[in-house]
């Protein structure tokens, strides 16, 4: 099936050449897997390195009074040091989560470099512009490509094409030259592994991707393994684990609120978010046995529905099913026994600590 309205990233032809199985995702035709398959791609990323095309995500630069971004995020923007990247939540006026995003202050540059999720990138940037009322403005750069190189071998591979990147630690960001192409390189990712995200001009994307794929340690990785990797790492997927019906407290994302912001309570919904005990909480869930519980499965305790699975599948590194979901706060403690309704039958499970697989960041 083809859909004429779907967009393609600059790496579309390369995905086809590599045997990628293309599916519609967030308005783009993206590879869900390559011939190796999701299990192998997942395990390979944790063992060596995987290259992901995440060019569908929304890149842009915020210029002007960039600290005004604090009007729509509870993150500490003003306190972000040169050369650092940070995770932030974009909040609705009510204080629920409109999106999550990364923002970077490149050394010696006045603009903030932003990366938002693919699904709402136009709306996000329009929302930021409207909320900042001219104090600062986003210039979308949807023409740029974004590659993620993730896994324990990522540093060694990238350093062959971009000397200097080995000095970066987690959440640092620099401008660098990768395989001859000007790039923004940050030591971040969405797999729980050490790794990098590499932003380059669309026209340079294929050259950079081919250089990295040329390393014997690197396999191309599709969206399927990206999802299982991030789920094992306990990382939220917007539109599933977080959306505009939940606030940062419910989503267990209070850590993303800067200390200064918490004290000043100067972000949308601050009173409610910081005010007390959230009615429900996002938790990790480990089903017993091998049957995965999928998104939407009801979470039951003593015959009563206490929540719903928001992400669920199979964790290849754990060789076991894993899930995330919201439960009433009284049942959010680690080890709480619950049941998941799968095909009409209760499946025993336990609330478990996130991440399921320890993060392997280079601190």
């Amino acid at each position, binding site marked *: 099936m083809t859909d004429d309205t779907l967009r393609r990233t600059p790496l579309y032809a390369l995905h086809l050449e590599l045997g990628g199985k293309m599916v519609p995702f967030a308005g783009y035709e993206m590879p*869900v*897997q390559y011939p190796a*398959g*999701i*299990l*192998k791609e*997942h395990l390979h990323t944790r063992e060596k390195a995987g290259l992901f095309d995440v060019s569908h995500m929304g890149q842009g630069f915020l210029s002007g009074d960039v600290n005004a971004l604090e009007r729509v995020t509870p993150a500490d923007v003003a306190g972000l040091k040169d050369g650092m990247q940070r995770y932030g939540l974009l909040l609705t006026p009510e204080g629920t989560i409109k999106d999550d995003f990364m923002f970077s202050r490149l050394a010696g540059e006045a603009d903030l470099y932003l990366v938002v999720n693919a699904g709402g990138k136009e709306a996000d940037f329009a929302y930021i512009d409207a909320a900042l009322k001219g104090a600062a403005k986003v210039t979308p750069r949807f023409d740029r490509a974004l590659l993620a190189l993730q896994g324990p071998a990522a540093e060694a591979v990238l350093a062959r094409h971009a000397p200097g990147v080995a000095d970066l630690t987690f959440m640092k960001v620099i401008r660098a030259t990768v395989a001859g192409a000007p790039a923004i390189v940050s030591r971040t990712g969405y797999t729980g592994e050490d790794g990098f995200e590499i932003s380059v001009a669309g026209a340079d994307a294929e050259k950079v991707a081919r250089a990295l794929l040329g390393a014997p340690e690197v396999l191309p990785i599709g969206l*399927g*393994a990206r*999802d*299982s990797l991030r789920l094992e790492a306990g990382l939220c997927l917007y539109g599933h684990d977080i959306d505009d019906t939940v606030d940062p407290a419910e989503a267990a994302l209070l850590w993303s609120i800067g200390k200064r912001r918490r004290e000043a309570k100067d972000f949308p919904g601050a009173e409610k978010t910081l005010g007390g005990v959230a009615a429900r909480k996002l938790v990790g869930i480990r089903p017993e046995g*091998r*049957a*995965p519980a*999928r998104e939407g499965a009801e979470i039951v305790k003593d015959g009563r529905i206490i929540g719903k699975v928001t992400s669920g*599948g*199979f964790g*290849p590194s754990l060789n076991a*099913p894993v899930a995330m979901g919201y439960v009433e706060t009284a049942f959010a403690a680690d080890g709480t026994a619950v049941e998941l309704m799968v*095909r009409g039958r209760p499946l025993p499970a336990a609330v478990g600590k996130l991440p399921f697989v320890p993060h392997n960041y280079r601190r």
Partner: protein
Amino acid sequence: MSETRYTDQHEWIRLDGDEATVGITRYAAESLGDVVFVELPAAGKAIAAGGEAAVVESVKAASDIYAPASGTVSASNAALEAAPAKVNEDPEGEGWFFKLKGVNRDEFAGLMDAAAYKTFVDGL
């Protein structure tokens, strides 16, 4: 002598004497991707043609497996519990799902043979 037929839902059924073995085709296994869990029917369960008989879960999604013809489950492939990857490795052999007794022969005869199934898949 055994005889194999195929459904448009990509199940195969191999009739051998009075017992039939059911599984999913290589085409189905490849479309699903890595199988991580298979839920199989209990022996003694009567299933009508087209009825939900089993569930196969890949990393990404769950898919129902339907009975190609009516019959009563006589066995299921317990080896798949520990080794669901057999469905990908050998879908039309060791990766079988369950066996049926008392198979409705008319329904069986109405299914596609190997040549017809190949034509069907080629047209997808």
